[in-house]
């Protein structure tokens, strides 16, 4: 039976998200209460997804409503962005990549490899987890708007 992601496995991703926004956007974000994705019906307009493999399998996803994505990307690249174009798609994928990469340094025992980013754009899409593990979502609030970090993480063995 699938079990939820362990707290010790999600904390590095929370720290990495905080660090990424602080360093690259000079923005302080605040994590909210962790929730189970299953049954929560969380919907978004754009999601950046990184696959994890090696000693642990799973995904790391950053999901944004359109308005938050536009403000976040504008801050990230230092130029105002007003449409959901290829720049936004690339930037959201890169943000997910940076978060996954930064979290790896606190999960070295799993020798994790990260995939190249996949980005989904579509109004009100939902992000589901795999069968092996119940993903958790961390809602973040920020001056740029609210967004979610979704982590699915299952260690091998």
């Amino acid at each position, binding site marked *: 039976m699938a079990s939820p992601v362990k707290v010790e496995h999600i904390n590095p991703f929370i720290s990495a998200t905080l660090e*990424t926004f602080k360093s690259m956007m000079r923005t302080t974000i605040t994590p909210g209460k962790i929730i189970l994705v299953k049954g929560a019906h969380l919907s978004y307009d754009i999601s950046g997804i990184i696959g994890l493999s090696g000693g642990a399998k799973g995904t790391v996803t950053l999901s944004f409503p359109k308005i938050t994505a536009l403000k976040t990307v504008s801050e990230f690249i230092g130029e105002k962005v007003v449409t959901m174009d290829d*720049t936004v798609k690339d930037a959201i994928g890169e943000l997910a990549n940076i978060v996954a990469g930064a979290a790896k340094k606190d999960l070295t025992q799993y020798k994790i490899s990260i995939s190249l980013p996949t980005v989904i754009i579509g109004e009100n899409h939902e992000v589901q987890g795999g069968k092996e593990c119940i993903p958790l979502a961390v809602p973040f609030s920020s001056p740029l708007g609210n967004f979610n970090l979704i982590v699915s993480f299952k260690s091998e063995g």
Partner: protein
Amino acid sequence: MKILLVDDSSTMRRIQKNTLEKIGHTDVTEAEDGVDAIKKLAAGGFELVLMDWNMPNMTGIEALKKIKADPATKDIPVIMVTSESEKTRIMEAIQSGAANYVVKPFQPETLAEKISSIKK
């Protein structure tokens, strides 16, 4: 200073290019993966390479090893700019000939400092 900027993310290329321009480096050529980088380096004249790690077609570490194995390019300093944050990865890059290493996320000042240290 003629710089080759290698990253599969156009966003990261734009961010790094903006940082380079702010510190006076305007002669910047972009490459979107290791294969593209090796091809562009063949034109000659480059004095610095900023290299991502995770890229399609040829990764940054593969490209770094090729650059260091080629007599024509082995003396060009390569700074890895990557989200690969583990010490083992950093050691692998340094042992493969990287001149320095910048972990994403980074503040623009950090990248500027690493580039300045290469110039000295």
